[in-house]
């Protein structure tokens, strides 16, 4: 087994050896919460295991496969058979399914070749696996020849009867047939037609993959009633018509065979079979959606990923000859993470403000140039508004109230005369704030503090180019929340913490090591960037999705970092589906499928009309990219126009002007003229 320098660096089960798959296995729960309680290999019903990337599908499927069965049973084949199944695992990327199309060949021919080849492809591992059982049980030659005779007879369309005398001979024969098809599929790119004698089906599709297990189950006593589970992973790699054939196999399966199909959520696109009958969840198969399963059992998820973390650390330390109890490993590791404190951030910037003018002050002065003349009066005006208040957060509260009151002034055409009015506002704010500070009743500022504190701390950090100070929540529990019920996201954050921490000489995994807030911030940001870059969508659809995500994040960022936020800690939005165009609905569906946004299952009624609204939140793993919060508090009501502009690709050219319109109401000096000023269309962020 690998001696990993970073215990979290393996993020994909495919990078593990079989031994490591076993060693690093952590079940989601025990008893009824075990993954194998609902996958249950002893039932005949096929399973469709769905999940977004990183939910652990491959680890689960491989853990159930024959090589792992052998490992778990220490190569005792009798023990394997106690499980009453043999799991044959196939990664379908290796099938190179995209070969089976085009090249001047009509679809019917491709269908035939694909179906024929799939039997040959699956039969290889099937026969090799059975062969190991025959060796172990020392199946006598008479029985073997009887089995082989049965299998030879399955090739009923050969010109002369097949006479393979050993399993190896049979495997070689099947390999030869496969090679002929490989060669034809390749050469047809030039020849433009198949040499039909090379690819002629020698048996009916399904005969090998169902027929061989059926024969062996009947004839070899030890394998009687032992299920063969074809575990086909990465179904999403198949073309639509190829998935239809797989569904057909699921429909037509014969005992003792069944299927487990692993796929990305977005890869689950058809229920059709070749006969156009639809296979149905709960009837012909059971759908197991890992994302839903985890999010419906959120109380189990923290324990599950904590166990993953402890498992990795235990292996890491034991390989270094260090033996620590699991509970201590967890506590020691958790203690390494520096805790975030709002007070420290405020104190830091307040002290900084004593040495230089902070950005929120400079920005206010700039904005006041629109309304206060002469310009030299601005400095004294701002000084009066600050009123010797050194606490940077308190300054922000006052500025917010000032921006809000400024916006409410109704004198568009008499802006220059506002000076007296703004002064009145400023004095009133100072009076009110003094009440708040002295503990007298100030409902205005108590509400501001309650609703805006976190947003303003975020603003202070970002405005002063120190976004890393705005981590908001730190430590393992926060990472679990940010991972959005996805174990790979969680492991990626930890991997980054160790990697970046080591670069910063924090000696993360050594006894005196720590993980600073800066490291945690960088780890979260890098993870967000990785998640963003690896969204598995291709072609035009990718462009549409990334555009919508850009627009959505622009809007959410605007509401958090503007002068006059109207919502609190926004990273979600609500929409009424009937307001959306079909294109916008499709886009929202795609974004949900690819886990960019997460639907709030509760939903809510619209305030005025009582219409059902859907609420969505940005995936928390992505939030650091735009400095957005992760705790649900406020939610942005997207009206029909804005929602369609964000999610309807055909309207993308209108987004910018709409964005400016919204911005002009949220960012001082609240000028309608800004609609024509393209230089002010983005926030300084």
């Amino acid at each position: 087994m690998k001696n990993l320098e970073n215990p979290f660096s393996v993020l994909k089960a495919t990078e593990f050896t079989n031994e490591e798959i076993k060693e690093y296995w952590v079940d989601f729960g025990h008893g009824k919460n075990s993954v194998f309680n609902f996958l249950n290999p002893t039932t005949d019903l096929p399973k469709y295991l769905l999940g977004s990337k990183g939910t652990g599908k491959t680890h689960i499927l491989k853990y159930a496969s024959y090589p792992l069965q052998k490992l778990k049973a220490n190569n005792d084949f009798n023990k394997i058979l106690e499980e009453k199944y043999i799991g044959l695992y196939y990664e379908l990327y290796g099938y190179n399914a995209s070969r089976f199309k085009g090249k001047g060949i009509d679809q019917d021919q491709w269908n035939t070749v694909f179906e024929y080849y799939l039997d040959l492809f699956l039969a290889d591992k099937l026969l090799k696996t059975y062969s190991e059982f025959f060796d172990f049980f020392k199946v006598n030659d008479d029985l073997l020849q009887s089995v082989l005779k049965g299998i030879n007879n399955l090739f009923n369309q050969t010109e002369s009867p097949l006479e393979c005398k050993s399993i190896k001979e049979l495997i070689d024969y099947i390999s030869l047939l496969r090679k002929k098809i490989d060669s034809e599929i390749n050469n047809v790119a030039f020849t433009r037609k198949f040499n039909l004698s090379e690819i002629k089906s020698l048996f009916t599709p399904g005969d090998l993959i169902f027929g061989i297990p059926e024969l062996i189950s009947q004839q070899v006593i030890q394998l009687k009633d032992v299920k063969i589970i074809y575990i086909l992973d990465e179904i999403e790699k198949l073309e639509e018509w190829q998935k239809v054939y797989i569904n057909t196999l699921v429909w037509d399966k014969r005992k003792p065979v069944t299927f487990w199909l692993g796929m990305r959520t977005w890869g689950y696109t058809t229920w059709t079979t070749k006969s156009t009958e639809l296979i149905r969840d709960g009837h012909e198969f059971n759908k197991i959606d890992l994302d839903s399963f985890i999010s419906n059992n959120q109380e189990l998820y923290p324990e599950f990923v904590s166990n993953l973390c402890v498992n990795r650390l235990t292996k890491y330390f034991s390989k270094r000859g260090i033996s620590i109890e699991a509970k201590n490993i967890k506590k020691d590791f958790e203690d390494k993470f520096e805790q975030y404190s709002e007070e420290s951030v405020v104190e830091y910037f307040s002290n900084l403000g004593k040495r230089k003018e902070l950005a929120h002050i400079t920005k206010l002065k700039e904005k006041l140039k629109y309304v206060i003349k002469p310009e030299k009066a601005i400095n004294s005006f701002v000084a009066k508004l600050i009123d010797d208040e050194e606490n940077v957060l308190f300054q922000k509260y006052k500025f917010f109230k000032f921006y809000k009151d400024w916006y409410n002034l109704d004198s568009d055409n008499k802006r220059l005369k506002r000076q007296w009015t703004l002064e009145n506002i400023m004095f009133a704010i100072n009076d009110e704030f003094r009440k708040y500070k002295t503990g007298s009743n100030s409902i205005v500022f108590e509400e501001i503090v309650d609703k805006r504190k976190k947003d303003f701390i975020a603003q202070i950090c970002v405005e002063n180019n120190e976004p890393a100070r705005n981590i908001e929540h730190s430590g393992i529990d926060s990472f679990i929340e940010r991972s959005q019920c996805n174990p790979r996201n969680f492991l990626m954050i930890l991997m980054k913490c160790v990697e970046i921490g080591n670069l910063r000489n924090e000696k993360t995994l050594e006894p005196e090591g720590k993980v600073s807030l800066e490291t945690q911030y960088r780890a979260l940001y890098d993870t967000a960037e990785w998640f963003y870059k690896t969204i598995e969508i291709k072609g035009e659809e990718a462009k549409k999705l990334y555009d919508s995500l850009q627009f959505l994040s622009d809007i959410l960022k605007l509401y958090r970092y503007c002068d006059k936020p109207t919502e609190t800690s926004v990273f979600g939005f609500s929409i009424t589906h009937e307001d959306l165009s079909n294109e916008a609905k499709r886009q929202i569906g795609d974004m949900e499928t690819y886990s960019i946004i997460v639907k709030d299952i509760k939903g809510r009624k619209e305030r005025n009309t009582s219409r059902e609204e859907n609420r969505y939140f940005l995936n928390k793993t992505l939030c650091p990219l735009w400095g957005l919060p992760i705790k649900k508090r406020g939610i942005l009501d997207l009206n029909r126009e804005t929602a369609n502009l964000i999610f309807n690709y055909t309207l993308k050219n209108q987004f910018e002007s709409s964005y400016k319109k919204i911005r002009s109401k949220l960012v001082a000096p609240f000028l309608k003229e800004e609609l024509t000023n393209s230089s002010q269309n983005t926030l300084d962020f």
Partner: protein
Amino acid sequence: MDYSIFYTTKHKNLEDGSFEEYDLFISGFDLCERTKKIYDEIKSKEKVWLIFPQYKDIKDTDYNSYSNYYFDSSYEEDTYFEKFLGKYNVSSEIKLCIDITGFIRPHLIFLIKMLYMTGVKKIDFLYSEPNHYERGENTSFTGITGAVESVKWCSSENNNPDSDNDLLIVATGYDDKLVQKILQDKLRVKTKYHLIGFPSLQLDMYQENILKLNQTKELVENNSYTEFAPAMDPFITAQTIHDIIERDKSYTNIYLCPISTKPHTLGVALYYLNNFRTKPVSIIFPYSKRYNIKTAIGMKRIWKYTFELP
């Protein structure tokens, strides 16, 4: 197979007496000065521009002043070249020269395989080296990237149903979008090698390459290795691929993906032609329907590679 026995020569221009007259000269039309210059100056009984539909910014008025060009609107290389052999007389004895500079990679590989299967035994390839790329490491060569697929006629003829010990060798280039697509598509391949162009075409290109590779590092954390082959040498590229593959005879399937320089692409093609009958080797590519033109600036020198095909 020792790939180092093949000839590579470099030239300031075409006027140094090293270039014989060819029977047929083929070049990809990309509107770059360097390809036009070679096309105009090379001596050949017949010259043909290949007009690729992927270069969407090329208008027919850009090339229709030339008497001989070949165009097909199909994006797929097999369909694109379907009528080529009917139009041009290609025999095993032909003196053939191909300027690979303006080619689209899958088309180049398909053409080489087609010529090889037609019996052509010797081809001179030219590659004109740019002074630099338009926007350094941020140069974008492609539009939206679609599916990762086998290059037509270059999929494995010995596909192994077992994928436990698969190998991916990516000749890694500037276009990190393409590298990312490949790595994502072949995420499950156990062992991955990045073949980096070193020495690079220009001094700064190596660093730019590494910068690009770093942007994809989360996809390749483990079981991932780096090897080097000169960016302008197809023969050492083929040799390096050979050496990697020979290190572990138990590779179940081998995927080669050429997204770096065109000479690297030649090296990948050369390795494939010598091994596709016996090894489970495929060439794969992240296809795109749009390629940008005029991404390179200037012409530093011309490389000539003489292939003697198996």
